[in-house]
């Protein structure tokens, strides 16, 4: 280990962030995953197989859509959307689930075990697990299972063993804790798959690399359209989707990149804006920016979009923030909801609630730009998951 950079990479560092902060029972299992992942990255057959699956099973590449009607309505810049809602399962999650499942297959594991906050990742894991002949177990908070009935039903149809976690609050971390506990006694035959970019090494590297295909496709599609974007914007909870969109666009000549975090609103100080309001700390196995009090106790995160409820972001975001390469902003819950609705009404694209946070910021920026300038927004998934969970139409005089 003479090369400090290689050493840092092997330890899963992103500058001073990242790492693998886990108790001893998990160290060796995760080291084995790291080794299998490194081997896969050096194996051309692996990359070919992953590429084929992405294309023939997942539906990649996803389109880049010009939001012409919305751009005209707002005035100013042209809006473009990267459409992860059109993937199999309707969210970006399946791209990350596929990579993790293929690594599990290489390691000759027979079961995928994961945690899911909204069920989106659980559905994705169920799909790829079924396709690869792997058993799938997903831990989810009981309250979340009850709230996300559609995803719970989809998981069951896919043969997922859904384990309800009875936990007194504090978001998804309890489900993750239960999943890790189960993993630590079954890792001989089990692969732990994470839904969150804020995870111990090698997961941020593995998930970040898997999802970077989103940005790579975008770059090519923008080139085909012969346009350069001024801004690229995506919502950030733990930041998997955003990291996937941003990674390939992060060069000096590229666009200004913006991560939109749930900032609550005028009536609440509660938020999920770890990269705006957080401080460096270690949580969920990684060193990153964490919402915490002065004593180092983790603060409960809040967002109207369940996928963004995280008090910590993936370590690459902490590094990008520190290096000034990405600008992180807070967006009000109400603005995000309005943006999501406007996209549906104007463009016929019913996107996830999470998408609304990035889009809301884009809608503020667009009028400040010329009509020959461009903004790229990421659509993380479809809005179908959230249907029926809110009284969305009542305040617009529509269906009561």
């Amino acid at each position: 280990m003479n090369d400090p950079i290689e050493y840092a990479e092997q330890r899963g560092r992103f500058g001073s962030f990242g790492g693998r902060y886990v108790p001893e029972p998990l160290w060796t299992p995760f080291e084995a995953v790291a080794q299998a992942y490194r081997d896969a990255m050096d194996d051309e057959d692996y990359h070919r197989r992953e590429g084929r699956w992405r294309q023939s099973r997942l539906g990649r590449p996803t389109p880049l859509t010009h939001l012409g009607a919305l751009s005209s309505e707002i005035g100013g810049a042209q809006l473009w959307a990267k459409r992860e809602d059109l993937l199999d399962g309707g969210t970006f999650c399946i791209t990350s689930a596929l990579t993790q499942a293929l690594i599990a297959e290489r390691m000759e594991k027979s079961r995928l075990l994961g945690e899911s906050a909204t069920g989106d990742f659980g559905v994705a894991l169920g799909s790829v697990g079924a396709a690869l002949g792997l058993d799938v177990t997903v831990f989810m908070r009981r309250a979340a299972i009850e709230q996300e009935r559609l995803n719970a039903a989809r998981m069951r149809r896919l043969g997922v063993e859904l384990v309800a976690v009875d936990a007194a609050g504090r978001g998804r971390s309890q489900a993750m804790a239960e999943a890790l506990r189960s993993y630590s006694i079954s890792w001989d035959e089990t692969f732990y798959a994470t839904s969150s970019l804020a995870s111990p090494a090698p997961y941020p590297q593995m998930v970040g690399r898997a999802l970077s295909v989103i940005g790579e496709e975008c770059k090519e599609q923008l080139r085909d359209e012969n346009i350069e974007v001024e801004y690229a914007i995506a919502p950030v909870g733990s930041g998997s989707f955003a990291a996937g969109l941003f990674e390939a666009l992060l060069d000096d000549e590229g666009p200004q990149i913006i991560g939109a975090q749930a900032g609550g609103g005028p009536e609440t100080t509660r938020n999920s804006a770890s990269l705006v309001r957080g401080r460096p700390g270690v949580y969920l196995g990684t060193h990153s920016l964490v919402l915490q009090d002065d004593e180092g106790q983790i603060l409960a995160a809040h967002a109207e979009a369940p996928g963004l409820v995280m008090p910590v972001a993936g370590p690459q975001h902490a590094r990008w923030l520190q290096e000034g390469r990405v600008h992180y902003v807070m967006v009000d819950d109400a603005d995000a909801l309005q943006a999501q609705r406007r996209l549906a009404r104007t463009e016929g694209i019913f996107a996830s609630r999470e998408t609304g946070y990035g889009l809301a910021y884009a809608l503020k920026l667009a009028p400040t730009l010329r009509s020959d300038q461009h903004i790229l927004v990421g659509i993380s998934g479809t809005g179908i998951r959230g249907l029926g969970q809110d009284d969305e139409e009542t305040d617009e005089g529509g269906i009561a």
Partner: protein
Amino acid sequence: MKNRLTPLENAFPRRTTPLLLTGLVAGDPFLEATREYMDVIVDAGADAVELIIPFSDPAYHGPVLRRACDRAMSEKVSWEAVEEMIADFRRDDGNTPVIVSTYYNRVLARGTTDCAQGLAESGVDAVRVTDLPAEEAGEFKEEVEGREMALIQSIAPSTTKERFRRLAKEASGLMIWTGHCGAEVTMPPAEFRDRLRDLRQYTPLPIVASMNVESGEDAASVAGACHGVLVQSAIAWLIEGLGANVEERLGAFVADLRVNLDNIAE
């Protein structure tokens, strides 16, 4: 600063009875009670006291200790308050080792230097950080060991022999075998005994097992294969039940552990 674990460690080959380490969640149900419980368990025969500093998300602890941490959270236990309590204990008891354990974010929030300094000054002998593996511990390990405290290394069923040998080289004080996950013991007794017999060849340090011990018989059965036991959840469970005579029951429980451990040495 005198390191009370080192004498314990040095004395170990001459010891004829297994070590009894007992854990308390600091501030469960409030700090003054924890201070009293420290006396009770030491009087009943504990060789060392571990104080678990509560963390909001003790993800790697089992349900009993998570509930104990939840109860202690409402007390908003600060480092300063814990240190005052330990200093007070030290005024009465200059010998019994005190181990402080927590999660790394609590250490970072205070700063690694201030944290190590504050603990050393209050009379702490060793520190254990649940989510800080040896590979990530560099800076804090120096801070802790530079102040003559030990940074306790855990080992587990998943720890390979090669890794154990590497960890043992750098370890100080004692090593703790975390042979359960939450409340589930993860290795059959015979395999546990074989593994421990094997590992003990590679370190002169005592290996104390945390194996979800719930009774004197459990303690004796575990300690037969190693150098002692660490008992945490059974004590938190007893405190959770409270009742008027909790101190009496706590003392009786620890005394029973002591007797059973002493018996296997005879």
